[in-house]
């Protein structure tokens, strides 16, 4: 009898350890403006995804939001870079279209270890003075848990706001993003993006306030700069307020990492781990 119990316990443990259910509803997410895999000025990376992938593997995120994603253009030899990164990381890719560039595209990209059931990509408002067309993407992923092995639905939102125009433009884009992805939704959501705006801005408070564009979000990220040592531009919110608990959050200062990591992008990647309450 003892042997049977022991075998059962070992088998249960093995299943538990090898299953995503072991991770419960805790997700590790990364937000990174990757500068089209181009490398910073003077340090051309030739659109090589490998050093990005090598670094991302050390962080082991469940979900990634990439901004400034150029893909499948002629200077990339028509290779779809999100799929290339997804293949190396064994994650599902979903590309978010902002505009056609050359023979390829420009936009955002989401990678997920978990499968997506619904996907959404939409252009956002482009007020006068903005640099170019931007977009927002959302995927509803299914995360299997012990209580719900068929998967708990969680929404991942990825966006990149204008960098050139006024703060009011970015506020309006934030309102549009929230309106399109959160308003009226009961799905637990993680919002990631390069907002190109500081922490005290209306753009940020658009997300954290309960307003006509949707319910309040919690800000997971702190005020650590993400663009050199001067600017905080990249954000991580959770929705609805109070629904998630932050386990950890860090900005990874790649400039202090060995070559070639310090020159991959002009933005630092941010990593956050959250648990659905």
């Amino acid at each position, binding site marked *: 009898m003892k042997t049977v119990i022991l075998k059962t316990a070992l088998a249960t443990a093995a299943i538990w350890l*090898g299953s995503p259910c072991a991770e419960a509803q805790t997700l590790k997410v990364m937000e990174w403006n990757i500068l089209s895999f181009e490398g910073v000025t003077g340090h051309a990376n030739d659109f090589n995804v490998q050093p990005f992938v090598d670094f991302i593997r050390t962080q082991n995120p469940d979900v990634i939001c990439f901004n400034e994603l150029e893909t499948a253009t002629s200077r990339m030899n028509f290779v779809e870079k999100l799929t290339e990164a997804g293949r190396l990381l064994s994650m*599902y890719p979903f590309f978010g279209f902002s505009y056609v560039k050359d023979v390829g595209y420009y936009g955002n990209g989401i990678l997920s270890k978990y499968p997506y059931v619904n996907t959404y990509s939409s252009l956002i408002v482009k007020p006068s003075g903005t640099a170019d067309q931007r977009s927002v993407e959302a995927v509803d992923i299914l995360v299997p848990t012990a209580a719900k092995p*068929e998967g708990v639905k969680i929404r991942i939102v990825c966006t990149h706001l204008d960098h050139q125009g006024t703060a009011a433009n970015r506020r309006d884009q934030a309102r549009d993003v929230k309106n399109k992805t959160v308003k009226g939704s009961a799905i637990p959501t993680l919002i990631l993006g390069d907002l190109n705006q500081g922490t005290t801005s209306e753009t940020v408070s658009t997300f954290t306030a309960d307003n006509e564009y949707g319910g309040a979000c919690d800000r997971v990220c702190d005020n650590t700069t993400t663009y050199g040592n001067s600017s905080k531009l990249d954000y991580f919110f959770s929705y609805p307020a109070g629904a998630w608990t932050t386990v950890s959050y860090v900005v990874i200062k790649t400039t202090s990492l060995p070559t070639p990591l310090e020159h991959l992008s002009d933005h630092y990647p941010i990593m956050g781990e959250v648990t659905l309450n």
Partner: protein
Amino acid sequence: MKNILYSFVVMAAAATLLGCGKDKHLTLEDVSVWPSSDFVTKLHFVSRLTDAATGSTEADFAPVTGYFSSTVGADNVWLGIIDRADVTYNAASQQNSALKSALDLKFWTYLAFNRIRNGSTFEGSALFLRAPVTGSTAYALGNDCFVAGPVLKMQGKKNDGTSISFDIYFRTARFETQANVDAFGGDNGILFQMKRERMNFLMVGTVKNTLVDPLRTAIDSHDRSFKFSIVEGTENRDYAIFVLAEEHFWRYVGATSTSLGGGLDAYEISLNW
């Protein structure tokens, strides 16, 4: 050209009207425009038509790459459905092996998700496409299974060789249990929902052999204008490939099959619109 425009106007008008209507008994019986043999499109379905996945390693997908690159030519393909391109979760070494094939062929990919099995195997089809998907709505087919519904850029040809391209509402699923069939049919089933939202959808998927007749009955009992066709050559396999569409929008023409070896087959499915 007149015919094309007329067809589109009728299709758009019908879809718009039907999408706004509150009547459960939507019908196009007064519309006399039908798919024409002048307009042909082809899609490709790769499957074992069993309960097994297409492959687990990248090497397993090499025949798929070979089929698209050598047999049909990747440039001629707007949709390849790679059935059961499953991924088993592994925190350390998960493999999404179909992506290598898509990369080699310079296709875009999209996951047409079907279900999570045993909490760790993500089952679904990999769609190979010429353009990125901009959105998708899934329909729950019971408690644990989904119909995937991406918007795809279709490419087809007129009989004079003119290329024609437009967005279509594609649907795919694998019917594995009677519960899936039960959820699909009926007055408030998934077919009714899909029909209300986009009556001109095109659905291509698989159905377990023993469920072909129950699924046909469920569809017919709901709306006989939706034509359910079994792709020839798949009737006696563990799973059959089916095409489902409203008869005013799409017509299944036929299919040819190519063996890719190791129990894997590719079906080139022809349709009129």
